[in-house]
């Protein structure tokens, strides 16, 4: 029996992981820069990556709902099973909420998202500067929430792999064989 995620699930996981790991610090860095063409470019890249993450998330959720993930490694304490599921659900929620809040914030502040500079993404709400300022705070706090969960998620994966030496992480790796 194959105790591993499907290749599309693995591909989406790592592609989105890469994009999130790139755009998270980019968002933090760019917002404190003085206004310059460089800053406007970085904002555009940040938004493009965020919108792509949002689109990939839709594909990923659809895939997840139609493909059963591999079972967790055997013998986990009950609390770890609950924790793993809770963190996964929360990560999905934040992968939705973070880009969505950024999108809404852009609309409210009057800077529409134009994917790759050519494809205008519809504004979900009309310009409303005070609301935009609130959404900016919401976007930031959701991002700190995402960072916290990522630390738990990655920490747990590494602990399973290097300390407990089980197959938890290998289930999500495309090339390392599952331990016998």
């Amino acid at each position, binding site marked *: 029996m194959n105790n591993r995620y499907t290749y599309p699930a693995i591909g989406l996981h790592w592609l989105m992981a890469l994009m999130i790991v790139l755009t998270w610090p980019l968002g933090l860095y760019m917002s404190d820069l003085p206004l310059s063409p460089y800053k*406007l470019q970085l904002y555009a890249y940040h938004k493009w990556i965020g919108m792509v993450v949002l689109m990939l998330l839709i594909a990923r959720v659809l895939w997840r709902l139609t493909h059963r993930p591999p079972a967790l490694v055997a013998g986990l304490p009950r609390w770890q099973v609950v924790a793993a599921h809770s963190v996964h659900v929360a990560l999905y929620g934040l992968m939705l909420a973070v880009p969505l809040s950024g999108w809404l914030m852009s609309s409210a502040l009057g800077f529409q998202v134009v994917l*790759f500079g050519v494809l205008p993404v519809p504004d979900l709400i009309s310009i409303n500067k005070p609301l935009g300022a609130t959404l900016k705070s919401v976007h930031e706090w959701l991002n700190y929430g995402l960072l916290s969960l990522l630390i738990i998620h990655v920490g747990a994966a590494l602990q399973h792999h290097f300390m407990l030496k089980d197959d938890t992480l290998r289930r999500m790796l495309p090339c390392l064989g599952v331990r016998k």
Partner: protein
Amino acid sequence: MKLILGWLLLIASVSVSAANFSVINAAKSNISFVSKQMGVAVTGNFAQFSSQISLDTANLATAKAQITVMLNSIDAGSAEANDEVKGKAWFNVLAYPNATFVASSVKAVAGNRYLAAGKLTIKGRVRDVVVPFTAISTGASLLLDGSIPISRAAFGIGEGAWADTSVVADEVQVRFHFMMLN
């Protein structure tokens, strides 16, 4: 003879002034613009401007227009952008507080469409421009609507690093809507 001619001119000027619109309703007039940043259309506007416009669509030879835009009143979309565009690389409002358009002639195109030729001065640079606009009379008022693309490079609006038009496009579309009363 001179007296009669004088009377005729007076009568003519009175009859013309009935259709001559020269008072602007500032509250219902605006000057806005759309710039493109990384492909994103960002709208802004100038809250303060003054205009001396005199337009009788039946007698375009008498048409006059002088529009002065107070550049310090710009809203470019964010507080950060407002500070930036008032600076030296952009409008340099300390040295050049106003932009002006002075029309030298107005001619009819078709229907209610017209062209105003004149000189646009921004940042001390003068360029000849032709501004297409529509004039729609609603009886008591005359609505003037038009837009004109302005090249940032032609006026040095956004110099240095900002001259890179791949980030902020060279062309900025300026739109105006004036409600004139007679």
